[in-house]
């Protein structure tokens, strides 16, 4: 396993899942699946002593290293990282905010393509996750199922004949599987139909969250749809519920709303998108929330054919690289909020004006 992390190289490129490709990628940003797993011989995290956690991390890391197919995977011991570096991994969705902010022995194994990562000592001993670009839950599930099999060949999981994979919180027990699809729904927001759409989803056991998961405000018209239930259904059923039933329906609503906007007041729409472009290319300082807001409009403009000289992948990349930790990594040092705002404006200008 690779122990050296080249942060600069990391910051300059973006993960595969931000390529802006894959099915339905004008609306679906990414398809993510995670599995919660625990080791049979350790208590769950809350009852682990500091020493237990250290031993658990070492043991898991050693076992990952023993896997032939994991030789290129980076292992990062999070306790050694600065706050900015941990925040950087959160912004790339490779680790959760919870593990970044907790303390004690914990880490993450990261695939060089950034399509998968495995957190060690999060709420559960292991949180395996796979992210694919666009709507590709079947592909993501087949990848994560393979990773799970590989880990299981060297790690003895806590598994119960009746309750399935045992997890620290009973809301994850059974499959331990959470499917999340990230959607960009600006037209449903503009036409004020978003609430109505989600209200109709509530009956079928899915939850909706903002871009950075639990507890976050919705930012830049991005919404994450996930399954609520993990027990009593097969993994494939849960994947189908979100990927074949719920998400295609939302996509259809969003497309209808986009068509409606184009048909209706194309002047208003043009104005909206052009103003967003104006601000992002001319502003001298800009916050990350404002950036999100306007980048979202430009992304919509590209998808509606109003802008044709910028790629969606560029916008996807800017969403990540204009966030606080990324800006600081690219700059190569700590920046105060006001300096970040200046730097962010410069960065946007450089990448958006031709």
């Amino acid at each position: 396993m690779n122990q050296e992390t080249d942060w600069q190289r990391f910051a300059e490129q973006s993960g595969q899942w931000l390529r802006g490709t894959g099915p339905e990628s004008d609306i679906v940003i990414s398809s993510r699946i995670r599995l919660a797993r625990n080791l049979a011989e350790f208590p769950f995290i809350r009852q682990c002593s500091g020493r237990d956690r250290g031993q658990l991390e070492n043991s898991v890391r050693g076992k990952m290293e023993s896997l032939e197919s994991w030789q290129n995977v980076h292992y990062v011991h999070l306790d050694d990282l600065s706050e900015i570096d941990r925040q950087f991994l959160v912004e790339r969705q490779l680790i959760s905010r919870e593990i970044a902010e907790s303390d004690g022995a914990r880490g993450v194994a990261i695939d060089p393509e950034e399509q998968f990562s495995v957190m060690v000592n999060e709420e559960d001993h292991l949180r395996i996750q796979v992210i694919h670009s666009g709507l590709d839950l079947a592909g993501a599930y087949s990848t994560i199922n393979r990773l799970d099999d590989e880990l299981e060949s060297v790690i003895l999981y806590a598994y119960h004949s009746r309750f399935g994979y045992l997890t620290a919180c009973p809301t994850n027990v059974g499959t331990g599987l959470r499917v999340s699809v990230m959607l960009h729904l600006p037209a449903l927001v503009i036409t004020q139909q978003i609430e109505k759409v989600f209200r109709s989803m509530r009956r079928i056991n899915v939850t909706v969250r903002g871009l950075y998961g639990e507890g976050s405000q919705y930012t830049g018209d991005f919404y994450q749809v996930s399954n609520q239930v993990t027990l009593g259904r097969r993994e494939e059923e849960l994947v189908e519920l979100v990927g074949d039933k719920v998400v295609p329906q939302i996509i259809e609503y969003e497309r209808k709303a986009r068509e409606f906007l184009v048909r209706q007041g194309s002047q208003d729409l043009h104005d909206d998108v052009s103003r967003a472009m104006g601000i992002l290319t001319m502003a001298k300082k800009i916050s990350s929330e404002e950036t999100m807001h306007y980048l979202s409009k430009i992304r919509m403009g590209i998808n509606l054919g109003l802008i044709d000289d910028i790629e969606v992948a560029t916008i996807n990349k800017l969403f990540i690289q204009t966030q606080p930790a990324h800006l600081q990594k690219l700059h190569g040092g700590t920046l105060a909020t006001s300096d970040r705002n200046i730097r962010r404006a410069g960065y946007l200008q450089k990448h958006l004006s031709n």
Partner: protein
Amino acid sequence: MKCQYCEKPATFHITELTGEQGPQILHLCEDHARQFLKNGNGNAGAASSITGALAQTLKLSTAKDELAETDQKACPVCGITFFEFRNTGRLGCPNDYDFFKSDLLPLLKNIHDAQRHVGKRPRRAAAMADQHENLVALRREMQDAIGREDYERAGQIRDQLQQIEANLNDDGEPS
């Protein structure tokens, strides 16, 4: 999913960002949601999703005395009491699923509308489901032996642990 405060289906899922203990997620029926929104944080404020669901299942199925008794129960392997679980929503070890089984079943029904796993089975762990207690306890005993420098005993336990793992063949049956 049912409302945290009654038997009706939860049609409102509210994230309360200003609660004293950080963000909380509430699952409420229309009536309780209206009441919650009208009263500010009302009496629903203290509930996060799991502790709320627990409060509901317990209120429905358990008399006060019984609840106090349940709260005192402590898992012999990891030591957490049901009260601690109820407050944090997190269990302490795999054995808790058996030790608190009768108290967890109604909760699982409430959260998942199911009480039995039907999905993937790991190839190796399937047959050792009932040995969790042994594994966590054995490992701890080994740590204790190392602590008091009884390396002979620690070695014996290590062999025993390895034996258990080795006994799990690929069919998930003990060999």
